[in-house]
């Protein structure tokens, strides 16, 4: 279960209204197991919702296969494609996608607008999200902002035009970045499948260095950490937990994004800054010291607090 909160929260809401929801696990690589999905269908299954690309680890789910399984069973297939549209080719017909969610600001478009693709054939009937004048085929009444709509459309057009070049460039940068990091630093782990992913989202665990502490050492870089020391809970990311990443390693993870406007020098400089910071913090880490001395840190009976 690695869905974004926007889907999880919606599921909770549906459960409160009496629907039953089955939450499926993912494999260690973050990808859904199609056999598990097959077994989860019941006679009552109405809809399957599986995200296209995960926002924390960048893995791509097998949309085509999921779509085929759903269509065979006459079950609707919704995909949260916020992180996928504009980054990977998507075809709602080939992939048998019945509903597809798009978020403007995740594809270099404006904030405040998104879109929901709703298949006409076979027809998906939705209850109105907003009642009123019947705009958007009655599903979402109220006048939309033309500026935002145009912005979203333009963002889509630009993404389509740039997609193949852009993803090749980002893939190359991600390769440079990982190569440099992996060559210079031992015990760094990529979370999520290494192939089935968009290249611009790298989630790395730097063993024995806590993520928040690491972020503070690379103040010039805008990255996020998978640990949640600054948030209300001490729990690390539920996405990493779903992959079976140990809590300890989850606390050492950074999510690094490479995008349309990232320059090669920035990628190189980011790698260099991270390497320096990790080395410095490992020198200060009692866990690194113990690991170097051959102590198995996970074998210690820590008093959790």
């Amino acid at each position, binding site marked *: 279960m690695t869905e974004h909160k926007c889907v999880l929260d919606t599921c909770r809401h549906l459960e409160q209204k009496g629907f039953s929801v089955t939450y499926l696990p993912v494999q260690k690589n973050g990808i859904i197991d199609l056999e598990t999905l097959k077994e989860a269908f019941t006679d009552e299954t109405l809809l399957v919702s599986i995200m296209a690309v995960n926002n924390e680890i960048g893995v791509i789910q097998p949309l085509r296969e999921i779509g085929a399984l759903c269509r065979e069973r006459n079950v609707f297939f919704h995909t949260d494609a916020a992180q996928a549209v504009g980054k990977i080719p998507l075809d709602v017909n080939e992939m048998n996608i019945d509903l597809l969610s798009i978020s403007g600001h995740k594809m270099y478009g404006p904030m405040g607008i998104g879109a929901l693709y709703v298949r006409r054939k076979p027809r998906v009937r939705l209850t109105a999200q907003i009642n009123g004048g019947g705009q958007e085929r009655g599903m979402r009444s109220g006048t939309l902002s033309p500026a935002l709509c145009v912005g979203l459309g333009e963002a889509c057009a630009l993404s389509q035009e740039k997609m193949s070049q852009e993803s090749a460039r980002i893939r190359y940068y991600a390769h440079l970045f990982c190569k440099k990091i992996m060559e210079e630093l031992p015990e760094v782990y990529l979370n999520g499948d290494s192939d089935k992913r968009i290249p611009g989202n790298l989630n790395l665990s730097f063993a*024995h*260095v*806590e*993520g*928040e*502490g690491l972020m*503070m*050492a690379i103040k010039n870089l805008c990255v996020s950490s998978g*640990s949640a*020391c*600054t948030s209300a809970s*001490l729990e*690390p990311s539920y996405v990493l937990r779903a992959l079976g990443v*140990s*809590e*300890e390693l989850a*606390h050492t993870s950074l999510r690094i994004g490479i995008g349309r406007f990232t320059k090669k020098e920035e990628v190189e400089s980011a790698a260099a800054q991270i390497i320096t910071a990790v080395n410095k913090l490992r*020198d*200060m*880490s*009692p*866990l*690194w*010291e113990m690991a170097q001395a051959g102590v198995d*840190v*996970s074998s210690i009976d*820590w*008093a*959790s*607090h």
Partner: protein
Amino acid sequence: MAYNKKVIDHYENPRNVGSFENGEKNVGTGLVGAPSCGDVMKLQIKVNSQGLITDAKFKTFGCGSAIASSSLVTEKFKGKTLKEAESIAIVILQANLNCPR
């Protein structure tokens, strides 16, 4: 999160990072926290025959404020008696570093 100046200073220029040699005499070691919770602190003190802390060192796995408070505590410990050190309670640390509570 906005850290105050003192935290940033101790984080960026941590004092007394390290470990005493294995087997060194009159050294006491404490290890607290848990990797699964995101912080582990190792604190060592060296105590002379009068019960004075002559040196202190730390290593910490944790966020910026965990590292900064470890650094600060080693500074505060030096020259203190064991009793005095005991009274350097977490409250004092928080007041010094304005840690979020």
